């Protein structure tokens, strides 16, 4: 696929036609949730909200990995960064999330060794070059990221690296859909399902959820045409009273997903209960490192106990992640909480709903 085709997925003329189809189809007032943070960003960047008829509301869901990381996990990351012989390695967004009394960025400013990496293999390289230090990678992300982190643990195992560790705070998407569908307040009429989580888990992973809750579901890509197409498909399903599980991102997502990535993930991790910011404890919605790889498990090696910790006072991230509130309804939004001085994670991550609102909303 050349970049030429990519431009076709951004074609304004085709977008206009799909929007017209949506307008003609949509009669009922409906609430659709884009579960994935990258969808949220793309929807804002392309001004999609303002182009839709008033009947369609788009809600942003819990698909920004940094945003759903529990407050006590953030605090544990910061505690780890304070250890003298530790180098923290992480993807970028996480370092600005405020913990109870600091952030990774603050610790870095105080001289602690916190490094932002592009890939887990960069963290492996840092471990090789610093044999007298303990290198900890902060494992935050969904099914898209977990296989890449599993691959780094397998690589460390094969290299006999004894100074590389991972703290696994991964989350799994389908169990969160169940929580959203079961919450009587969310009232979601249809889900725009994530593109790249689906690349890994495939269409088939959503079948149990779909069969149990019979709610319209469409897997979508990230270009404007992809998202508009998914909205049109969901609108048709809802107007026809015919819920379906559909895939509008066939160029990247197959029925069975990516079995090789999943087997890598499953070699290293097993499912475990996990606490999500906003959604609370969800059974079997997380991943922990299997016993065979316990030597790489930072939680065991550093004996990390997750403390009770409070979410920032007044912060509505939790309700925003459930689609119950939009950022302007939070008392802190643009007031005490800004991208420069964020209070909650939804303002920190570039994929967070509050950050997207702050950047784009007032201009649309």
């Amino acid at each position, binding site marked *: *696929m050349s*970049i030429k*085709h*990519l431009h*076709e*997925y951004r074609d304004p003329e*085709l977008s206009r*036609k*799909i929007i*017209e*189809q949506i307008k*003609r189809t949509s009669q009922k007032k409906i609430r659709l949730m884009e579960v*994935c*943070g*990258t969808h949220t960003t793309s929807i804002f960047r392309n001004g999609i909200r303002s182009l839709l008829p008033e009947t369609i509301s788009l809600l942003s869901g819990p698909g*920004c*990995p940094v945003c759903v990381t529990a407050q006590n996990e953030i605090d544990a990351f910061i505690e780890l960064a304070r250890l003298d012989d530790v180098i923290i390695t992480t*993807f970028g*967004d996480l370092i600005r999330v405020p913990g109870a009394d600091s952030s990774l960025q603050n610790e870095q400013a105080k001289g602690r060794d916190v490094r932002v990496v*592009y*890939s*887990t*293999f*960069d963290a492996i390289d840092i471990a090789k070059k610093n044999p007298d230090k303990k290198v900890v990678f902060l494992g935050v*992300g969904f099914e*898209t*990221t977990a*296989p*890449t982190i599993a*691959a780094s643990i397998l690589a460390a195992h094969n290299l006999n690296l004894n100074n590389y560790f991972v703290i696994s705070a991964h989350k799994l998407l389908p169990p969160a859909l169940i929580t959203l569908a079961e919450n009587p307040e969310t009232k979601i009429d249809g889900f725009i399902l*994530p*593109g*790249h989580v689906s*690349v*890994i888990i495939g269409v088939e992973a959503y079948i149990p959820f779909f069969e149990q809750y019979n709610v319209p579901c469409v897997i979508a*890509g*990230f*270009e404007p*045409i992809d998202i508009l*197409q998914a909205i049109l498909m969901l609108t048709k399903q809802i107007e026809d009273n015919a819920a379906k599980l559909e895939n*509008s991102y*066939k*160029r*990247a997502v197959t029925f069975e997903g*990516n079995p*090789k*990535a999943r087997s*890598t993930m499953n070699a290293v991790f097993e499912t475990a209960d996990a606490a999500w910011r906003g959604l609370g404890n969800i059974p079997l919605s997380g991943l922990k490192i299997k016993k065979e790889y316990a030597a790489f498990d930072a939680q065991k090696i550093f004996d990390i106990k997750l403390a009770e910790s409070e979410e920032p006072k007044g912060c509505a991230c939790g309700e925003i992640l459930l689609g119950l509130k939009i950022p302007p309804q939070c008392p802190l939004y643009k007031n005490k909480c800004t991208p420069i001085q964020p209070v909650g994670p939804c303002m920190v991550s570039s*994929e967070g709903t509050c950050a997207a609102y702050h950047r784009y909303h007032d201009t649309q």
Partner: protein
Amino acid sequence: MCLAIPSKIVNIENNVATIDVDGVKREASLLLVENPKIGDYVIVHAGFAINKINEEDALESLKLLKEAASLIFDNDKQK
């Protein structure tokens, strides 16, 4: 987090690809994809190729979308 631009594999060495995104070159691990070949388009996430893009499906979806869209607008013109 999810960079969605398809990247072209231009070289492969020890399971690491050199990928080209519209002229910008970087590296990506190929450990998570089956049978990667030079010339394949892949989606890269956090330094790893996570799948191959199916060009046939990409073109087919576009074709169907365009047909559906023009059908409606052609009908309008006939009215």
